[in-house]
């Protein structure tokens, strides 16, 4: 085994000498030294670790370093954090019950339709504060922009374009949108908008200091959408690609108004307490039953399946 090794080493040595000779501007070429060929002796190259363990455990490397006089300066692990969105929805909008259920021709329907922002003073104040920092903000033109952001964000979600999604959606909303979606395929499309979107609520909370303002605007959007969700193996989980569904949503859009580079981004959705239950998934799910003591029997007739509480929550 030493002979072919020696040959390759000699060949390598010759190659290096040739390379050095052909390089331009190489003046002093030293004479090639004879190579030293390693010969395998009786020395054991690998000794199992059990031999030297006692010595290693006795000597503490930190103590040895301190005894030698090595001092480490205290390491400051500092990292600046940029908080560009709030953690939730402050003072959420409570959608009136029966919204979009009544026909616009009845008296109640008209009352709802003509419900303007003027009803809430806090919203007006918030809008005024936002207009101070962003003079281009207008309650009439803003809903279109917000709807555009919503559509683009969901298209980016279907393609899973992370960079674009981060620019259209806040950091608080991003994990909620994308959790569990890495191994799923989402097919979503926006068919049409049934009613023009409008601003229904606005708040301008501040974080840490009084001047650090974040603007949160709630929009009401009634539209028709198609959603189909496929699992990891391409099987349909939810929805269908052919049937569009009418959707009434309350979107919350947020912007760090004090920041000149801040942008309006989707922050969350409000699901009202009176929202109808969603379609069931195409799967049988086990609901955990009551805890029985030994000797008790499970009475299937008396057992009531627990239903979710109807409370308003934001997602």
């Amino acid at each position, binding site marked *: 085994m030493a002979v072919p090794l020696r040959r390759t080493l000699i060949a390598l040595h010759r190659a290096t000498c040739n390379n050095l000779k052909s390089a331009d501007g190489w003046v002093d070429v030293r004479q090639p030294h004879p190579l030293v060929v390693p010969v395998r002796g009786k020395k054991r190259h*690998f000794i199992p670790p059990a031999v030297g363990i006692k010595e290693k455990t006795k000597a503490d490397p930190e103590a040895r370093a301190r005894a030698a006089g090595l001092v480490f300066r205290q390491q400051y692990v500092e990292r600046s954090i940029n908080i560009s969105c709030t953690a939730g929805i402050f003072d959420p909008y409570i959608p009136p019950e029966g919204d979009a259920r009544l026909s616009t021709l009845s008296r109640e329907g008209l009352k709802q339709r003509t419900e303007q922002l003027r009803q809430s003073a806090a919203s007006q104040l918030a809008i005024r504060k936002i207009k101070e920092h962003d003079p281009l903000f207008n309650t009439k033109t803003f809903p279109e922009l917000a709807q555009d952001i919503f559509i683009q964000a969901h298209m980016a979600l279907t393609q899973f374009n992370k960079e674009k999604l981060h620019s259209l959606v806040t950091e608080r909303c991003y994990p909620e949108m994308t959790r569990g979606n890495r191994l799923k395929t989402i097919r979503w499309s926006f068919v049409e908008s049934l009613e023009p979107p409008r601003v229904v609520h606005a708040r301008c909370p501040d974080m840490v200091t009084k001047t650090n303002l974040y603007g949160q605007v709630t929009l009401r959007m009634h539209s028709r959408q198609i959603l189909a969700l496929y699992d990891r*193996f391409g099987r349909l989980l939810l929805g269908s690609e052919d049937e569009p569904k009418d959707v009434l949503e309350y979107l919350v859009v947020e912007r760090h108004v004090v920041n000149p580079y801040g942008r309006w981004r989707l922050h969350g959705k409000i699901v009202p307490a009176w929202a109808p239950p969603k379609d069931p998934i195409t799967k049988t799910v086990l609901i955990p039953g009551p805890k029985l003591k030994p000797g008790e029997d499970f009475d299937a007739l008396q057992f009531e399946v627990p239903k979710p509480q109807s409370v308003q929550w934001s997602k």
Partner: protein
Amino acid sequence: MATACTGRGLSFLRSLTRHVRGTALSGRPPAGLHTSAALEVNKNWERRNLQLYPPQLPGEPRRAAEVHHCRRQIKYSKDKMWYLAKMIRGLSIDQAITQLEFNDKKGAKIVKEVLLEAQDMAVKNHNVEYKSNLYIAESHSGKGKYLKRIRYHGRGMFGIMDKVYCHYFVKLVEGPPPAAEPRTGLDQAQEYLLGLRSRTVRHSL
């Protein structure tokens, strides 16, 4: 062996390796950097769970869900583990768990834990509807990283003892277990004859 060159040769080799630093490829060390085999770990079996299939067309038959699960560095011999892996190949998951529960080997308890974990994962993460509707498609054991210790013999002689570790891999597939085709002795004999008759004889007269 290659490291024992002197003088010009070593500097030449160094200049070669300096060129090939490259970028890290998703967790693997950069190509050209020599690491020992002890540090590189293969996680390919776990990566099979991250494969995403495109949505199926309405006419296609429903694709069966697959779950890959493994346990690494089990303190057991790979040859002894093979017997258990071979025993449960092709059984439904309930049958396999029952058989392992009443098996006296040390590895049986570990394999049973792995199967239960895999079943749980399948129901929670991989959209498997019924937890009993799974069968064991693949099951095998592999060699783990061994520790080496000294075994003392007489007359100052010693041997290097291996502390054996193994990995256990299992793949569960949704659906009833495939019916094993009964192969009689006659079938096997016929196959043997076919094999003999279909041989190609080269350079014959």
